[in-house]
Structure formats: structure tokens, C-alpha cells
């Protein structure tokens, strides 16, 4: 903190530098800022790197002191065991289907409903919106017993629709799209399109979707990560031996289904890798999306 204070002092003494540096955001970070940030970066990445290291070793090596800090030669062997014995292959495919469907459904339905709430007039609009906002933060635990009864009644146990359908729409998504479209879509543009005789369908396709696209991308990314990592309801609705998602398969590993720690780490690595790759490729957009979402939401 010392360097921050001296920076502040220098700000006050020289008026010319104050002009140039202006407010907080233009100020360059000192050595201390870099040191702390690097520390946090290591803290954030180390457990992930170590997952890969542990996955490349074997169980005996992981039981020795000191713990391994570099890669061994067992990575592909362990990945293969996790892929077949822990059902991770099926799990990855299932999760892709589940998270993909949920993302498409949430983005599409949220955009349509969000547009209606933002720009159209209809009866009970305020009341319905209140209902959406009121249930936005209700946790999944609150509906899990009736959902379980429904799934049992319909005979959906261990079928993917049991985890897709309950999560297919999101109240948060509707609210998020509404907030975005209120500002991003000028009412005059809609009126003008109406004057030109555009039907609602054309209006949505040619005006609403293009205007909503940035927010749809953000909502899509957030939804995909959330659906990929969903845990509570899937471990109740699905079983590890049947049609698991990645998280269900990992929970099976946690139950000690395979005692080899290096294989468990290989499973954790397999389940995390797809999202990590997405982060490497689209990290900038995801960061931008979360920050944008924070301001809108």
C-alpha cells in the first residue's frame, strides 16, 4: 500500500501530472499491484494445473511426500480409464446435449418474453413481470421434491429431458433481456416498422434480434456455464451408470466408485477441459459479458 500512498502524494503536489493522470483509472499500477495480481493469478490457476499434474501420475505417487509438482507419464492411461470406467465419455456427450438445448431455449424464450415486457403493452404486464422478478432468486432446493414426483410420474428417471425441461427457461434471463432491450431498442424504431406494416414476426426477426444480439451472446455464455456445472437437481434425477451428466459422473467418482486418486483427477480434468478451452478462446468476450451483465442487471 505504501506505493499507492506516494502516488497519491505526487498527485497532489504537481498539478501538471494531475491533469495528465486524471482519475484512478488512468493511474498506472505499481510493482505492488502487479505482485498481488500475480499472486491471485497463481492462486486461481494452481488448483487447475495441479489437477492435470495429479492426473498424469499414479495413486502410489500421490500418496508420497512431497506431492508431485511436475507431470508424469500416466495422463492418457488415466484419461482412458476415466472415459470408460467412470462413464465420462457418455457424460460429456450428454452434458453437451443438455447444456446446448438449455442455452438455446433460455436465450430464445428470454429474448421473446424480454422484448414483450420491455416494449409492448398488454394486460397484466406489471403483475406478470413482478412474478418473474419475485421468483428470480428462488433456489432449486425449493422445487426439488415436486420435480422428483413429476419425473417419477412421467417415468423420466435417468432420461435427459428430466434435467433439460425444468431448466429450459430462466426468470433471470427474461429480466436480463428486458433491461437490455429497454435501452438498446428505441421505441421509435418499432413504431416506424409498424407504420411500414411489419408484422410481429418480421419485427422480431429484423429489428429485435439484431438489436438484442450482444445481450443474447452474454446470456448464452452465462447460461451454458451454469447448465454445464449444474449439480443439485441432476444428481437426483440421473444416475451415474445410466445417462449421467459430467457433474453426476464426477459425484460418482467422489463416492469412491474408483479408488485411484489419479483417475479421479483425470475425470475432473475431462469434465473441466471443455469450458477451460472455451475460456482460453473467448476469455475476453466472457469477461466483457460478465462485466456488462453486472452493469445491466
Amino acid at each position, binding site marked *: 500500500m505504501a506505493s499507492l500512498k506516494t502516488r497519491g502524494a505526487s498527485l497532489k503536489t504537481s498539478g501538471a501530472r494531475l491533469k495528465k493522470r486524471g482519475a484512478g*483509472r488512468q493511474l498506472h499500477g505499481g510493482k505492488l499491484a502487479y505482485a498481488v495480481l500475480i499472486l491471485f493469478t497463481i492462486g486461481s490457476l494452481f488448483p487447475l494445473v495441479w*489437477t492435470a499434474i495429479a492426473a498424469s501420475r499414479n495413486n502410489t505417487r500421490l500418496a508420497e511426500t512431497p506431492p508431485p509438482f511436475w507431470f508424469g507419464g500416466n495422463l492418457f492411461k488415466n484419461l482412458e480409464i476415466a472415459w470408460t470406467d467412470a462413464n465420462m465419455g457418455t457424460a460429456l456427450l450428454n452434458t453437451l446435449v443438455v447444456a446446448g438445448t438449455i442455452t438455446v431455449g433460455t436465450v430464445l424464450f428470454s429474448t421473446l418474453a424480454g422484448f414483450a415486457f420491455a416494449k409492448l403493452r398488454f394486460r397484466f404486464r406489471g403483475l*406478470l413481470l413482478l412474478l418473474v422478478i419475485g421468483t428470480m432468486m428462488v433456489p432449486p432446493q425449493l422445487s426439488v*421434491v415436486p420435480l422428483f414426483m413429476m419425473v417419477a410420474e412421467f417415468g423420466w428417471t435417468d432420461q435427459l429431458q428430466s434435467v433439460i425441461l425444468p431448466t429450459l427457461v430462466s426468470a433471470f434471463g427474461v429480466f436480463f433481456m428486458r433491461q437490455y432491450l429497454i435501452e438498446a431498442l428505441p421505441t421509435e424504431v418499432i413504431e416506424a416498422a409498424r407504420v411500414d406494416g411489419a408484422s410481429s414476426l418480421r419485427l422480431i426477426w429484423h429489428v429485435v434480434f439484431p438489436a438484442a444480439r450482444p445481450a443474447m451472446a452474454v446470456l448464452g455464455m452465462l447460461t451454458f456455464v451454469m447448465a454445464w456445472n449444474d*449439480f443439485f437437481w441432476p444428481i437426483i434425477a440421473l444416475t451415474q451408470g445410466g445417462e449421467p451428466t459430467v457433474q453426476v459422473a464426477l*459425484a460418482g467418482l467422489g463416492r469412491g466408485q474408483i479408488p485411484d486418486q489419479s483417475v479421479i483427477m483425470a475425470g*475432473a480434468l475431462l469434465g473441466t477441459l471443455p469450458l477451460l478451452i472455451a475460456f482460453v478462446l473467448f476469455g475476453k468476450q466472457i469477461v466483457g459479458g460478465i462485466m456488462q451483465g453486472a452493469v445491466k442487471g
Partner: protein
Amino acid sequence: MTDIPSDTRTAAPSTGKEGAAPRARSVALLADPAAERRRARRSRRYRWDMKWSPYALIAPFFLFFIAFGLFPLLYTGWASLHRVELGTPTDMEWVGLRNFSRLLEDDFFWNALRNTFTIGLISTVPQLLMALGLAHLLHYRLRGSMFFRVAILTPYATSVAAATLVFVLMFSRTDHGMINWALGLVGVDAVDWQNGDWTAQFAVSSIVIWRWTGYNALIYLAAMQAIPNDLYESAALDGASRWQQFLHVTIPSLRPTILFTCVVSTIGATQLFGEPLLFSQGASPTGGSDHQFQTLGLYLYEQGWFNQHLGRSSAIAWTMFLILVLIGLLNWAISRWIRRSA
């Protein structure tokens, strides 16, 4: 952008006067009876469209929302007044408030409530404080600032299950565990993380902290970037140091965001489930041999899917709901107080 938006852009100024161009066109067409009929049909369809399309747009959302969101939420309340067995979930026997009264007599319920509160506290407070500090650092002009932002967000992409499996190994009891080994380097004896009361709660909290600190830092950073520069400039002119600017400009401007993250983290803490489940030996729902880190979420799961009492499980769910409503009211009161003092 195809034809309509470009059309509308040119037409936009005239909308104030009811759109001069279309009316002129319709006058010209009036002579042709076929065109007139077409026009009438079109305007009928248009009125119908204007009236019903809002409902059509919200219908898909509300269909799923009612079936899988609202109905289960309310039905949980109904189920909590019944005896429901896991094996025969459709066989319900009315028991009134007995599930709730049994809950209040159960020591494990109070234990779970206490644990949820303490774990929530030791995971949320340090997490948000660190996030605030991190956001402050990221707000400087930095080389590689995007790299830092992506790096601290990666734990957010890691699932609860994957993260917990890794942390279990790192918090391993004997001295070959990563953390005990590191403690050994500085002369601290190996800690039995899972079996101690506080150590286990600390370890579970550390998973939450690891996953969410970066995410919250980005939320704070976004709010910091929205603070107008001249606030800092005038503070600097008044002779405020960087630290004083942080305390007297940044923090007050962030108050709504801080409140928002507090609420979201509190809700997250109330429903904490995956971390304590997978942290206990063999993913048992007891939350450790002595229930030392069993949260309300785990207790609900244990009652419903291990002790097979779905009715009691619903009663726990509604108790959690009540707690959330209390938090919501508290949030409302605080935000009102903030607005009044601002």
C-alpha cells in the same frame, strides 16, 4: 440488418405525424376494389397481431415457468404438510404441521442451520473483501490487464464437483496432502482437515472462496469503471490520498453493487450443497462423521433421499424459503436506508 431497419430509419422522423408516406399510397389504391379487400384483410390481420402477439411472445416462457418453476415451488408447501415416502412419492398422507414440529425438535436441523450460517460467513466475508481489493488493483492501467481478468475468472468455469474433488486431495489428512505439506515447510503439524469442526468448515469455505472471488471482482470492477472521473479529480484537488479516495469516493459509489453481491452470495451460501457433499468421505450426505459441516441443503437431501422422507424434506425447503424471505426483507430495509442517507 436487412431491408426493414433501413426503411424504418428513413421513415422514423415522419412517425410523429402518423406516417405520411403510407397514407398517400393507400389513397392511390382506393380505386381498385381487389386491392381494397386486400387492404382490409391486411389491417384486420394487423389488429389481431397487435392484440395477441405480446401473449404469444411470453407464452413459451410462462408455459415452462409455470410447469417447472411456479407449480413445484407451491407444491413443495403442500407436500410439506404430508407424509411422503421416497419409494411411493404419489402416496400422500395428511399430517398437518408435524413435519415442521419434528424439524424444530431435531438437533441436526439446528446444527445444519448453524453450520450454514458459519460457513456462509467465513466464505462470503473474505471473498467479497478480497474481490473489492482485486477490483481496485485491476482498475489501474496495467500491462496484460485482460490476462489477469481471464485468469481470476477461470475458477468460475470449474464446476463445484471438479473443484471439490481437487480440494479434497489437496486438503488430504496425512502429510502428503499439498496443504499439510506446505504447512509442514513452515513447521506446522499436519491438520486433520475433514474431521475437525472448524478446519472442515474452513476447507469447505475455501472452495467457495476460490470459485467466486474473481467473479465478484469483475462485478466490482464494472461498477468502478462507471464512477465518473471528476469525482476522483475533485477529491484529489482536495488533497485526498489514493487510500482516502478509495474510502470516500469508490466505496460509497459502489454501495448498491456491494449490497447486490452480498445478497447473491448470501443466497448462494443458504443453498450450499455440492461442496460439503463431496468434501465428506464417500460423498455421504451427513457432512462429516459428526455432521460438523452438514448444511441445510445437505440435511434436506439426507432427509429426502437417504431417510426417504420427502415430506420432511419439503418442510426443510420451506424453512429455507422463509430464511430467504427474511434476507430479502433485510436487503430491502438496508437499501432503503442507503438511499435515504445518500
